[in-house]
């Protein structure tokens, strides 16, 4: 319906800068997930788009329309608050009907729409109750219904599923996605559940301390994190991250913990030659490594001692201590080494990530920017 654009938006609360010069485009009809740790400024961005907060600097556009100075009621948005914000003195039905009443929709139409959205969210039996008589998950769905019923141009969701049980969450999240596509509404979805973000979103925006860390489709976020923060924030268990020294005698090689060396792949070599950092930050995902007995095939290998083994049924998480670094590796259930055993951790080819130690930016991206810059 409409594209939402933030241009150089900063929001300060006194001395706290909650959102720092953010440039973002939420594509028309796209489903964007806003992902970040607690206090990173996700809700603030949502409130800025809603018009509840006014930016300290920068402008906000809905399509061509500059909405920076418009009141929330002039923006046609639907908003699900993090704490639901249901009206305690109204029944569920009245809560959902309220936005339509404010628009002076005829009562019959209101009725139909409320019943429809209630059915979709499995809350039809709750319509006569008051919010205080609902569980957290039920309240959340009522709040979602209230935002959906008005068929807004922009749908803003502040962790709308955080209180549902796992089963219901998965069910609603796929239906939510379907209805979002059906309505063609531009959706911004705040969450700190990364699997939710990766599963639902067309695009994921990772934010930390009010600064955008990366803005990309889910698989890019996962496979090519732009910086150390994204790499360590996405994934469960998080990526293994550790510093390592470099050796440039013939070609750029990394001195891995445990005394092995690994000479980097093509895509990193150019950049390393040019920058010649004496150190890099190395990262890889636990699911991209395995425990092997015989390191032969040229994969990057780290030697260490098994520290703990956590069997999870479908897989095991093995922690390996090498020098003073602890690495996590996901292994198939049958691979269950003994604590104290000496093992080799081999990382899948091409899955080793290297970051600039100063800026913590993925060297791959630096290489790309260079090649683009000429």
């Amino acid at each position, binding site marked *: 319906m409409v594209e939402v654009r933030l241009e150089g938006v900063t929001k300060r609360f006194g001395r706290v800068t909650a959102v720092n010069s953010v440039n973002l485009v939420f594509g028309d009809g796209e489903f964007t997930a806003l992902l970040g740790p607690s206090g990173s400024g996700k809700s603030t961005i949502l409130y800025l788009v809603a018009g509840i907060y006014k930016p300290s600097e920068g402008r906000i556009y809905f399509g061509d329309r500059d909405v920076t100075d418009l009141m929330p009621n002039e923006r046609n948005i*639907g908003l699900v608050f993090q704490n639901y914000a249901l009206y305690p003195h109204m029944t569920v039905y009245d809560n959902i009907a309220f936005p339509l009443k*404010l628009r002076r929709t005829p009562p019959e139409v209101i009725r139909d729409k409320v019943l429809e959205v209630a059915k979709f969210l499995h809350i039809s039996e709750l319509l006569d109750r008051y919010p205080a008589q609902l569980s957290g998950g039920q309240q959340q769905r009522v709040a979602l219904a209230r935002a959906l019923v008005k068929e807004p141009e922009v749908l803003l969701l502040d962790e709308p599923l955080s209180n549902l049980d796992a089963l219901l969450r998965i069910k609603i999240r796929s239906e939510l996605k379907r209805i979002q596509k059906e309505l063609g509404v531009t959706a911004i979805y705040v969450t700190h559940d990364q699997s939710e973000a990766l599963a639902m979103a067309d695009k994921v925006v990772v934010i930390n301390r009010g600064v955008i860390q990366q803005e990309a489709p889910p698989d890019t976020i996962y496979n090519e994190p732009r910086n150390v923060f994204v790499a360590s924030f996405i994934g469960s268990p998080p990526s293994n991250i550790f510093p390592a020294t470099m050796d440039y005698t013939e070609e750029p090689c990394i001195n891995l913990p445990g005394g092995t060396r690994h000479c980097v792949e093509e895509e990193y070599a150019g950049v390393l030659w040019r920058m010649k950092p004496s150190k890099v930050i190395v990262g890889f995902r636990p699911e991209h490594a395995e425990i092997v007995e015989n390191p032969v095939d040229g994969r990057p290998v780290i030697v260490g001692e098994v520290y703990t083994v956590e069997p999870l049924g479908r897989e095991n998480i093995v922690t390996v201590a090498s020098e003073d670094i602890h690495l996590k590796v996901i292994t198939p259930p049958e691979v269950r080494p003994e604590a104290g055993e000496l093992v080799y951790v081999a990382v899948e080819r091409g899955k080793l990530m290297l970051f600039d130690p100063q800026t913590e930016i993925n060297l791959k991206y630096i290489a790309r920017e260079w090649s683009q810059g000429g």
Partner: protein
Amino acid sequence: MGEGIGEGGPLVRGTMGIVIILALLLASLPIIMTYSTLVMTSFANTIVSSPWVKFRFTLENWRLFLEGKLAPTAGIVYTPEDILRFILNTGIVAGGVTLVVLAASVTSAYAFSRMNFFMRSGMMKLLILLHAFPGVALIVGVYAIYVFLNNYIPRDYSIYYSFIFVIIARASLEIPMAIWILKGFFDRVPWELEWATIVDGGSRLTALRTAVLPLVKPGIAAVAIFAFLAGWEDLIYVLVFLPPQEKTLATYIESQLGSGSLETTYLPVVAAAGTLYLIPTIIFFVVTQRLLLETMSGGLKG
């Protein structure tokens, strides 16, 4: 009885608990005695000097009081006073004060709780200062204004003028506290509720009306009760501003005892007046006890 202290039972139990309860009873004796003798006296033929004294039950005092037959001095010809009128006057002042207080405090309290404006906290501080202000310094100036404006009021309307003036002037005294109490109630309404209404297409006023006000009803009730009781109990302002023939229950009682010439035999009649006067206070007290206690402590919590 069997609850442990961990389950909300008393913190002190056994002999010590009983001693404390009895000590409190002893300390409360003057209150219990004076109130009960007042009520008993209103039904007796003489002053009942303590609750355990025997007396003859009679409704004569109530009859004399309601008929307004209370001789200033026995034997002197007098005209009965219109007690119903006095009761009505008391009600008018109390009701008027309630309306004025609510009208002036609800929106202001909302603004102090929810809006940012020039001198917001300065104004709030000023209000607290005003609440504590020497009332006697105010009443001198207020009366000067009253006298000054009275010159411009046509004679026929002067009685309305007096009533309206006394109501507004008395209500003003209650406004700082009312705003402070109400602000506390507004503060407890989550911001998101208001935002939800505005996001859904309402104006700020709609949000106040539909989302916020219904949630501060207890606060409004508390403030209304305080205002009503303040107007109901007022003696000084009514005495100063209303003409002598327009009495309220307070000034009626005051005029009986203040003249210093009332005979002892008529004192029980005044007790009837006092008992009647006390009834609304007691009713509010019993009905809203917890709300009252909570509001009084919430007003200036630290």
